[in-house]
């Protein structure tokens, strides 16, 4: 009885020697298929593949990372609100106003980059290599434009005398907006590397996880900005 079972299960005789006792093994009573095991694969985005876990490792890992990012910004935004609520007059007297208009246009630029990123993702799903590269280029261009405008506005604000040491007003502005800018920079660097691979036709219609992951981070960074714009510039 036990020998019968082991003959079907144990494939290599070498393993049988290592095992001190031959265990009778039957079919797993639950989970007819293993819940995962092959990590970092290109399964992401393929709806017809039900063998793996609902979220691939890379996708899940990035989601978890974004959870941590959210808590990081929650700490900074919470601190900002503590100061903002405590001040009747904001910005405090004698300090320059923030460039609401220019930054508003800049916000639209960043939001547009999310749309082009989405078009890139859709393009590669149907195998559109050239469209993918073109849309990634536009997205990277929009992201870099956003950073350049932000940097230019920072330089102007510094000239007007708004520095890190300008009370909590200057400190929260530069730290909050600066932390976001660092994230955009990181997203741009990631995007450029994806672009590099896309130009070499690394991604296919069924293997576009690299694009999708980058897009997810890009959306996160883009979606964060209107919140910060509303709080720091408008509130």
């Amino acid at each position: 009885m036990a020998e019968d079972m082991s003959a079907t299960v144990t494939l290599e005789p070498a393993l049988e020697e290592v095992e001190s006792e031959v265990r009778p093994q039957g079919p797993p009573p639950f989970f007819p298929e293993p819940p995962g095991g092959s990590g970092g694969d290109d399964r992401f985005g393929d709806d017809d593949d039900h063998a793996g876990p609902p979220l691939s490792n890379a996708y899940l890992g990035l989601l978890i990372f974004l959870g941590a990012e959210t808590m990081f910004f929650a700490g900074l935004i919470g601190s900002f609100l503590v100061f903002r609520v405590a001040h009747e007059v904001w910005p405090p007297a004698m300090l320059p106003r923030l460039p609401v208009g220019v930054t508003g246009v800049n916000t639209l630029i960043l939001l547009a980059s999310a749309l082009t990123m989405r078009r890139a993702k859709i393009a590669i799903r149907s195998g559109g290599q050239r469209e993918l590269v073109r849309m990634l280029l536009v997205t990277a261009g929009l992201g870099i434009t956003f950073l350049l405008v932000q940097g230019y506005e920072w330089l102007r604000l510094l000239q007007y005398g708004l520095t890190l040491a300008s009370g909590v007003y200057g400190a929260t502005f530069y730290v909050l907006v600066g932390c976001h800018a660092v994230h955009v920079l990181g997203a741009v660097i990631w995007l450029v590397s994806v672009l590099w691979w896309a130009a070499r036709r690394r991604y296919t219609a069924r293997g576009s996880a690299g694009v999708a992951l980058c897009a997810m981070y890009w959306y996160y960074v883009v979606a964060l900005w209107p919140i910060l714009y509303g709080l720091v510039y408008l509130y």
Partner: protein
Amino acid sequence: MSESSAATHAGHHREGFVKHYFFSLDHKMIGRQFLFTGLFMLVIGGLLAMMVRWQLGYPEEPLPFMGGFSEDFWDGESWWAQTAPFGIVTSEFYNTLFTMHATIMIFFVVMPIMIGGFGNFLVPICIGAKDMAFPTLNMLSYWTFVPGVLLMLLSFFVPGGAAGGGWTSYAPLAAVPDYAGVEGHWGVTLWCISLFIIGFSSLMGSINYITTIINMRAPGMRLFRMPLTIWSLFIVAILLLLALPVLTSALAMMVFDRLFGTNFFIPDGGGEPLLWQHLFWFFGHPEVYVLVLPAMGVTSDVLSTFARKPIFGYRAMVYSMCAIAFLSWVVWGHHMFQSGMDPVLGTAFTLTTMLIAVPSAIKTFNWLGTLWGSSIRFTTAMWFALGFVSLFTIGGLSGIFMASTPVDIFIHDTYYIVAHIHYVVAGIIFGIFAGLYFWFPKMFGRMMSETLGKLHFLLTFVFFNLTFFPMHFLGVGGHMRRIYNPEQYEFLQPWQEMNTFITMMALCLGASQIFFAINFIGSLIWGRRAEDNPWEANTLEWDAPSPPPHGNFLEDPVVYRGAYEYSSPEVEEDWLPQSVYLEPAVAGEEGHD
């Protein structure tokens, strides 16, 4: 010719020394790396505590090992001569000592050993996976941790000494460079940067643990079949993931305050010192459970294994850990009752804090329920697990006192608090020892000496209680925490004999760890070879060879039941591993397919 080609062939399969021991991608090796780093830091953190105790027991007397140095040595420019002239702990050095003791013990001992060490070693193997979800990220997690360790150790040698603002580094004391040191201000800055760096290390670990546990379980390993150690590490990973970034943001602001002239926490420039406390404790209280939950998980596994009984109320254990984790987000204000917060708000924090006693009590009573009527095997691991339960009970009960504001006003920042945190956090060391004695055979393929282990337990347990229990009395007597010289206060002079007694006991407690060091290192080299399942335990790691090879299992495990089927009536032995398939009793001899 053929010999050399054979050697090349073998070398191709075996990783090089550096790749194997340093830049390994294998979760078991990374776990061992974290373990050894943590044990090394345990020695340093322990020695710092000994010096703290020396100063409190024998205020402003030369440290005992300093007698041999000549006058020339103390006239010289050496680090010791500058930091502790004539072997006497200066007040600045004293501040550094207790700050770094706490920081090192929390961030560089308990977290690396419990989460980095046990977590890395156990998470994949206990759920039947071959490795972590992201092995490279796992390696990076360790090698991000190392610079954090080095910076923290380096900070002892910068001008002005290491951070001295307490492990909580309250602003504005820590935010203003002039307050912290004599001439230099690098201590607190390096402290911030070091914690900032290990925040990234923890983040990488958390991502790995959560993804691995969600996606990589073996067939049949449902969430509610996981050992409680894995459950605790899963919950801890989520806590760390969400709590540490808040500290990271606060540390960033602190560094900006110190280096770039911002005024987040400095009232002069419109800043808010209390903001630091809120951010710190919003991280800090989940951190407390980050430290204690893995010890609870390890204790549950060890208790059940050596009581030869299923853990009492498995699901209740899981749910109570989830409840503790959830409640830990809404209790941070109980660290700040004395900060001038609205008493109404304080009452709310009192209530939420009291609520945590409920899941904690469920766990404690379930441990007792597991022991009830069992046939206990008194191994060293079991002794340490029992020690953890008893210390946690004392520490948990004293926590209820300080949760209520009227009592806390009296005992706030006294040695009562010091006693409490040591019963809880230093009690975790008992969980660590329980885990080490339990999993040492699996980690290193050799058995530890039970005789030395039991001696180590006995001495540690006795001296631990003799050290920390009297601190309750000191605290009620009004002995403040973090004071340099208790003899300077007239009302504390009657207590000085107790302080001296505590110091002697603390030195004995430290010395008792020599038995552990001998046992640990000796067993690594000369220990008896361990069989695969020396404790006759159920969980998947005991299916693998000791130590497990790369890929962990000789054949992919399939899980058929929960982790705690001890003394099952279905089998003759008193253990029933998770991966053993039993024919259903009702099925016919040949009928089953």
